[in-house]
């Protein structure tokens, strides 16, 4: 019975041997203690702990301050209930704008990203072309959408247009990269076979590339719509239209119950986006 007991190995690396196999720790060969941390890793852990403690000591965080904060938080939460969905017009306008920004920015992003992703694919395009395309895509991804939104608000004025433009840029940065990577991962054997039939580049694209990437592209696009829904509530804060602006204004007025109402609506919208993504996955799963 005892001999069939498997060796018990705990996370620290010591081993519980079955009784009849007792031997001194020193006589164990080194490789029986496989989970020992290396010297460098041990130093790393100590260093991280030290940095944590040091930063804690520099922040002026006292127990009294913490209790004060808790009180404020309690009042804040208290004033949020019950949630209010008025003024209705403001709420509906904000939601509608958010939806507009998300959908239109995603659509424009897809239209721009398709050629951009193709041009950036290193298995189909010469290096000079992919270099330029990759530079543009990276540029689009360099700044957070909110920063880009500020620029567009300055350029085209307050409102939905600035939000759409900002999120279009973000979408190109994201989708362009994903599209290019998906195209680079296609099986070149299938491409070679279609090329060997004398097909033109457009036909190779239609019959060898697209069939291999289509479903992945649809998945990426669904994800991007979802991501734009969330981001479009953000860009409103800097005046680029959508729910964010309304939310920010309500905060300024201390209308916390309306804030909660809006937050609930935004959550509903996000859940809707999630459901859409699931639906897309189900329909185009294969």
């Amino acid at each position, binding site marked *: 019975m005892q001999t069939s007991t498997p060796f018990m190995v705990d996370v620290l690396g010591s081993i519980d041997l079955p009784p009849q196999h007792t031997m001194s720790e020193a006589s164990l060969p080194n490789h029986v203690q496989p989970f020992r941390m290396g010297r460098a890793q041990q130093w790393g852990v100590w260093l991280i702990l030290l940095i944590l403690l040091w930063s804690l000591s520099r922040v002026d965080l006292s127990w009294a301050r913490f209790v004060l904060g808790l009180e404020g938080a309690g009042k804040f939460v208290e004033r949020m209930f019950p949630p209010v969905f008025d003024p209705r017009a403001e709420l509906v306008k904000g939601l509608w704008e958010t939806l507009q920004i998300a959908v239109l920015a995603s659509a424009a992003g897809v239209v721009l990203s398709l050629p951009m992703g193709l041009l950036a694919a290193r298995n189909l395009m010469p290096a000079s072309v992919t270099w330029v395309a990759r530079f543009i895509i990276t540029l689009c991804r360099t700044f957070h959408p909110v920063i880009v939104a500020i620029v567009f608000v300055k350029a085209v004025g307050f409102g939905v247009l600035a939000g759409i433009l900002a999120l279009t840029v973000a979408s190109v940065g994201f989708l362009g990269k994903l599209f290019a990577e998906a195209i680079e991962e296609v099986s070149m*054997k299938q491409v070679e*076979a279609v090329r060997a*039939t*004398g*097909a033109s580049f*457009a036909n190779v694209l*239609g*019959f060898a590339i697209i*069939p291999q990437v289509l479903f992945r592209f649809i998945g990426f696009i669904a994800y991007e719509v979802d991501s734009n829904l969330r981001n479009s509530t953000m860009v409103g804060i800097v005046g680029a239209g959508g729910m964010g602006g309304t939310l920010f204004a309500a905060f300024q007025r201390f209308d916390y119950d309306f804030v909660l109402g809006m937050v609930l609506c935004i959550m509903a919208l996000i859940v809707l986006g999630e459901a859409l993504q699931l639906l897309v996955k189900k329909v185009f799963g294969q």
Partner: protein
Amino acid sequence: MSTRLELRGLGKSYVPGKPVLHQIDLCFDTPTLTAIIGPSGTGKSTLIRCINRLVEPSQGDIWLDGVSLGQLNAEGLRQARARIGMVFQEYNLVERLSVMENLLTGVLGHTPAWRAWLRRFAPEDIDRAWQTLGLVGLQDFVNARADSLSGGQRQRVGIARAVMQSPALMLADEPTSSLDPKTSADIMDLLKQVGQQRSIPVIVNMHDVALAKRCADRIIGMHQGHVVYDGPAHLLSDADLNTIYGGRSWLD
């Protein structure tokens, strides 16, 4: 009249100074099945791929019915490729497309992109695709996705795709290496049948010497990038095989 394919002084080096193919001179002008045999890494695949310029030759030229393939521009090369059917070792079907769509890939050479993208192929091409499906015995799988087929079925689709090109020449790069012996023989018979029906030369890379001797009319033996045997299949002797593969223990 059968197609005439000529390789003149064909050479290829992937790395400068290390040629894989040396000065290959060959002529194919009868509607026969030619098997190219030789050890792995001896340049058989490179030779086949040089013919339709999937691999760019380094020296020499290929002449197909009096046209020099090496000199062609992109458009000319497309037209030339459309006349050369090719079958691959790993079938190279577009896996997510249906069997019918894979067959119609064979007519992409003369189908404008907008028609192909909308799947609005010419009715005569679709009729021909049905006939070709009958030829390879896969009518029941017309709507099946290519990746749902077995190896033998996939290779049949691969051959059907090449037949759809109405080729003047058929190339096959180790078409049976991933298949069991029975299916391999069936596939070789099918290739031979296609060549006879269309009266065109068929050139096949092979590993299986016994199968090559049985199916091929002519055998070309290669060793380290040189042609060391070129003659009728029934005249291939053990001495020739020794020159091609080296050593003799595997013959016993």
